[in-house]
């Protein structure tokens, strides 16, 4: 038996894990990213002549949880048709048995990279609201994401916001909706054994306490709300979530924004927003300088907020009053 040198050993390792699209209509261009569950490649769809992002399992395997999870991920995303959710074009198997799915190739930046270039809190809040809306759409169809974090959110070339990587998503229940079908019921049945109680999936800094404890049966929309709160924390402070409140990290954060973030990230799930839609509404009110549900203002703050919202009107009234006083004074003299 011939000796295999260290260099050739590394080469063989690469061969063994590299994606072979030979039997598919896709031609590999390059690797885009590698995560816990899979590797994402940029590829050419030779039939439709367009570029797509293809996600495949890192570990070659012929059967098992990961493969089932990948197929489920593709099926879930395929049924969520929303401008904020990356569409799936195709699902298939590589010759070695690994599952892949082809999805829209999003040109743009990840939310964390985007935030590094865009300091305006207002602009960040608008993007965050769009994230909430996409997640709210999934919630409305009984799906929770379970791995929301800045790295899983893309900002497209035209400012569009897209939520990626529904790899650990969970179907909560069957909902009456245009995308609901018999498949939902089947998925529910498959899901029971899919992630066992006590299994931790997600990303530490951004996952809810119940998710970190592996209490899979306790997870619902409010677990995603916690993760959204953690994303908001990052957008307000440029730091990963910690025990310090956002205002303590960045004094420019308003009390209302601080309160929204803390409410979303409450340790007790019952104290959080019940859905991403509720959180989105509060963010919308914050952007419109209206009172938010998470924060009770005192009179001075109410006046201050009203003044901030109506500063042009106040300026006009003041200018009018100054003019009146000026004319009254000049006509008397």
């Amino acid at each position: 038996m011939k000796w295999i040198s260290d260099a050739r050993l590394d080469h063989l390792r690469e061969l063994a894990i590299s994606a072979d699209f030979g039997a598919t209509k896709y031609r590999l261009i390059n690797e885009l990213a590698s995560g816990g569950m899979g590797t994402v490649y940029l590829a050419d769809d030779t039939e439709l002549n367009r570029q797509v992002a293809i996600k495949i399992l890192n570990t070659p395997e012929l059967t098992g949880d990961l493969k089932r999870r990948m197929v489920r991920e593709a099926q879930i995303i395929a049924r969520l048709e929303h401008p904020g959710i990356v569409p799936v074009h195709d699902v298939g198997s590589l010759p070695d048995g690994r599952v892949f799915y082809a999805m829209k190739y999003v040109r743009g930046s990840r939310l964390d990279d985007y935030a590094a270039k865009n300091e305006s809190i207002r602009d960040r809040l608008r993007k965050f609201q769009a994230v909430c809306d996409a997640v709210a759409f999934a919630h409305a169809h009984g799906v929770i994401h379970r791995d929301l974090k800045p790295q899983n959110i893309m900002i497209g070339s035209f400012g569009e916001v897209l939520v990626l990587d529904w790899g650990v998503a969970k179907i909560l229940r069957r909902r009456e909706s245009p995308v609901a079908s018999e498949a939902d019921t089947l998925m529910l049945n498959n899901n029971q054994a899919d992630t066992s109680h006590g299994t931790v999936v997600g990303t530490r800094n951004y996952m809810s306490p119940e998710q970190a404890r592996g209490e899979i049966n306790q997870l619902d929309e409010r677990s995603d709300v916690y993760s959204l709160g953690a994303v908001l924390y990052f957008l307000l402070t440029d730091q990963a979530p910690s025990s310090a409140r956002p205002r303590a990290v960045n004094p420019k954060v308003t009390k209302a924004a601080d309160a929204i973030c803390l409410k979303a990230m409450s340790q007790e799930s019952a104290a959080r927003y019940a859905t991403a839609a509720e959180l989105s509404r509060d963010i919308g009110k914050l952007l419109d300088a209206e009172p938010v549900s998470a924060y009770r203002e005192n009179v001075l703050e109410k006046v201050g907020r009203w003044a901030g919202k109506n500063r042009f009107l106040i300026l006009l009234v003041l200018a009018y009053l100054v003019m009146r006083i000026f004319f009254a004074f000049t006509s008397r003299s």
Partner: protein
Amino acid sequence: MDPDTDIGGVQHRFPVTNQSAIVRARSSDHAVRQRAFDTILTSYWKPVYKYVRLKWQANNEDAKDLTQAFFANAFEKNHFADYDAGKASFQTFLRTCLDGFVANERKKGKRLKRGGELEHFQLDFVNAENEFASHAPDLTPEDYFHREWVRWMFSLAVEALRERSKKEGWGIRFQLFERYDLADDDAATLSYASLGQEFGLDATTVNNYLAAARRDFRRVVIEKLREITATEEEFRNEARSLLGVEVK
């Protein structure tokens, strides 16, 4: 379809391999256990020999005796049946058993009985010793054991691929793979075009043949891994260990 370019059967799906040797090692049927044991022995004897040479500073004769006696003893006492995939990888379990065995044998200081169950096996210790002597390890014994296990697994996969290629009439395909992906001599300068000239093929055919050989190589590696892992979790762990891929 050209048999030399088509592998994987219907829809290019590869068959799921037999139940793992680790699981079969627990069988009450002696013949089944024997076959499982043969698979484990084939997959681990060489890293075991080299590890004993390095960690226990055994000379080649002692290392040979210890390797054979370790496997014979493990089979006789059915040690591999005690393996619990929830606690450690099989590789770690085996190495721990080996350390315990060698330490005990050293304490006893008796002449080792070469394993009766292994006598039908031809273990190429001369080759193993040459490899150990000519490629001096600069790793810890544990890392060395792992590195040599990876090398041995790939060597076994290459040999299995060679055999399969011979049987299926995929000779050229394997030769191209051997030349381009295994040989060290001119790896940096070799191109598909130059390889094509050498074999009288065009570059596209070289590309296709190599892609098919690599696909088959991946398949064999996965089959080998399946053979020696008991659970999905362990398969993932060993795949990560063998292929260097991090899996959550």
